[in-house]
């Protein structure tokens, strides 16, 4: 009885728009940050709010976005993957390694038909993901440190394949998806959008997606509910590696070359996008929607700073400070939400 009375009161309180807003703060705060950034840059530079530049931003966040799809799964499970950038790099290099290069490229590579090269690249990133999965679930190495080792291993594979050289050619399909466009829209933007949508659908509407949230919400309870937690975490690590692999292949095509350390910045960019978007590092909360907002917060920030006249050396500091501000907002929003819930 007490229960239902309290409950009715609760519902009444919830009905208030204010409370509703507060409950949604985790999602609203990053969005507000985004609006502020857009408003600021539009005001500060006439070249920022142009259609052309919107296209730039979309293209610039595409590679990060593809990586972030898999990383969102990983972080929702309360794990982390530090090998994303390095696996992306290795996969991009593998696909180029198995493609015939121009004569002036000095790599002892193995040209194969495009389909075979793509298949081998998928195989490579899947294997790296499986190795991560194996280390984390079977051996029991914390993901932070397992993927740190993987970061080095994948970098080693990249180095070994290109040996300091640069490869330019990738299979036609990859080249089209990475650098081509259709009706003025770059294919890479379309691919990123499709993968983000697919990630969202999997997380929201499939049994596996539910398990990801459940495992992230309370791992112990998931295990005592008879879920195969190891399988789920393992799968998530493989999804992350394959997402990174796709990003690596398209990225190589997009940038027009495959070389060592090409993707290094994507590690922090992708993690920051997921976290700034409001997905909790402790798992169980957030999703692709949040990741998309996070992607645009960072994308707009990076792009906008190029449009305003600003001391080049100051830029790095400003980027750091805005990132910190976004995090602070995020945490406070989270706190407000929790107060609203209780």
């Amino acid at each position, binding site marked *: *009885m*007490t*229960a*239902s009375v*309290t*409950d009715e009161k*609760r519902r009444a*309180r919830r009905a208030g728009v204010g409370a509703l807003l507060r409950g949604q703060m985790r999602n609203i705060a990053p969005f507000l940050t985004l609006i502020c950034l857009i408003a600021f840059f539009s005001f500060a530079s006439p070249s920022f709010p142009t259609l052309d530049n919107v296209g730039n931003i979309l293209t610039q966040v595409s590679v990060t976005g593809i990586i972030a799809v898999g990383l969102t799964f990983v972080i929702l499970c309360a794990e982390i993957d530090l090998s994303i950038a390095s696996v992306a790099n290795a996969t991009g290099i593998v696909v180029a390694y198995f493609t015939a290069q121009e004569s002036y490229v000095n790599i002892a590579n193995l040209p194969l038909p495009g389909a075979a090269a793509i298949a081998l690249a998928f195989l490579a990133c899947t294997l790296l993901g499986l190795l991560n999965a194996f280390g984390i679930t079977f051996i029991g190495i914390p993901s932070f440190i397992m993927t740190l080792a993987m970061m080095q291993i994948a970098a080693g594979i990249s180095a070994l394949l290109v040996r300091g050289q640069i490869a330019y050619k990738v299979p036609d399909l990859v080249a089209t998806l990475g650098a081509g466009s259709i009706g003025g829209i770059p294919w890479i933007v379309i691919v990123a959008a499709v993968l983000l949508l697919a990630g969202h659908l999997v997380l929201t*509407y*499939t*049994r596996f*997606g*539910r*398990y990801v*949230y*459940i495992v992230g*919400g*309370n791992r*112990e*309870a*998931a*295990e*005592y*509910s*008879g*879920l*195969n937690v*190891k*399988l789920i975490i393992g799968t998530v690590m493989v999804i992350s590696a394959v997402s990174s692999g796709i990003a690596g292949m398209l990225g190589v095509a997009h940038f027009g070359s495959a070389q060592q350390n090409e993707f290094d910045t994507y590690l922090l960019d992708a993690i920051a996008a997921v976290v700034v978007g409001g997905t909790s590092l402790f798992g*169980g*909360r957030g999703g692709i929607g949040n990741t998309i907002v996070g992607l645009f917060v960072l994308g707009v920030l990076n792009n906008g700073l190029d449009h305003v006249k600003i001391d080049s050396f100051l830029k790095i500091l400003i980027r750091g400070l805005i990132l910190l501000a976004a995090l602070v907002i995020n945490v406070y929003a989270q706190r407000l939400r*929790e*107060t*609203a*819930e*209780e």
Partner: protein
Amino acid sequence: METGAPVIELVGVSKSFGGVAALRDIDFVLQAGEIHGLVGENGAGKSTLMKIIAGVHGDYVGELRLDGRETRFRSAGDALAAGVGMVHQELSIAPDLSVGENVFLGTQPVNKAGIVQWRRMVEDARRLLAGLGLEIDPRARIGDLPIGLQQMVEIARVLFSGARIIILDEPTSALSPPEVERLFSLLRRLREDGRSIVFISHFLDDILRVADTVTVFRNGRRIATTPASETRKAALIERMIGAGHEELGESYRADIRLASASAAPVVLQASNLSLGRAYRDVSLELREGEVLGLYGFMGCGQIELVRTLFGKLKPDGGVLRIAGTEVRLASTSAARRAGIAFVPESRRSMLFHAEPLYKNTSVSALERISRLFLKPAREREMAHAQIDKLQIRPPRAEALVGSLSGGNQQKVGLAKWLSFPPKVLILSEPTRGMDVGAKEDVVRIVRGLRAEGLAILVASTEPETVLSLADRIMVMKKGAVVREFENEVISKDRLLEAA
């Protein structure tokens, strides 16, 4: 019983957590040199009130007087400095440190230069623990000790911190009866020294035996405070949860007749299971439509045994058969697919607090209703079926489980298995830390499931739970099965004796 002046006095204390009132307008008096028993349902606010006195919750409404002077503790450190020490409901030790360090947690002896004196610490710890009748090497890692001893070390820490006001929040739930006896005699000695003790427990017999004064809480309010000598168990229960629950007063001193072996088919059979030092050579049979009770003190190996039956731990040896076929449970999900359901001891490890009720009740049965895509409508149907069956309140499939009361959360923990549906249900400590009313609900539900033909294993360290539920009882001691009772008359005393 003669008592002195009030050492702690609370006047009009209220406390709420984000709008939900946990305590409403509490007046509470603790005298010097008394043992004050505190009883009440789960969630009645006992721990919350004590945490206010111990400085854990600094923001509350109302007044706290220490020796007649108004104070407000901002942190546990403040309270400790003022002589208030508390043993919390959850075990709070640092598992990787030595026993000695845990005895002094945070107040390790130092010399004038501030250097920790390890040797003195070890000696002091040894002496203090010996005073409690515990011969433990203070240099041992505490995480290596059985839970009961860990709990004793934690109690020792508070007792020897020099606190004049000692709060014990359900300290006995992890202790064996002899350990409880030792604790009680120590509490009486401390009372002689003029210290004040608050003792929280759901074991009303214990409270009546050791306390001078008993206070009953209900729904965040103090209902009554009476001298222990002037009240009875039935009266306490009535104050806690209302009239009409007289049968709960039963203390199982009387004899109980166990059923004779049933002829129903065996569902689960274990032969000579062993696991490291946890348990060895355990054999058991579980038949359709019966409840097998597994009793033993904390640390006797039953926790590990039931986890093995659910595939969480892998046995070193022995054979497990389900419906006659040998199985190897590689994981909990293998166990679930084999038809075994398991409800662990703590709510924290069975529920997803941030998720709505229907997602909690469907989690173990999802693959039965959906291959690839979720079917939320079916999930809600399933939830409502369980809500009706177990009378979960509020009856809303969308309610966040974290916002349910303790008793109802416990029901959700059971409900999530019933849609599966399992062949074998294993309950580990189904009544740990539960108030008498909630215990009654558990008994009712388990009996209902037995009538439906489920094979049920109940493992517990509480004799009442086993006695009230089981058709047959196995007693474990130090990792081995030492007695089996079936088709005979048994009482609590005989059960304790066997352990």
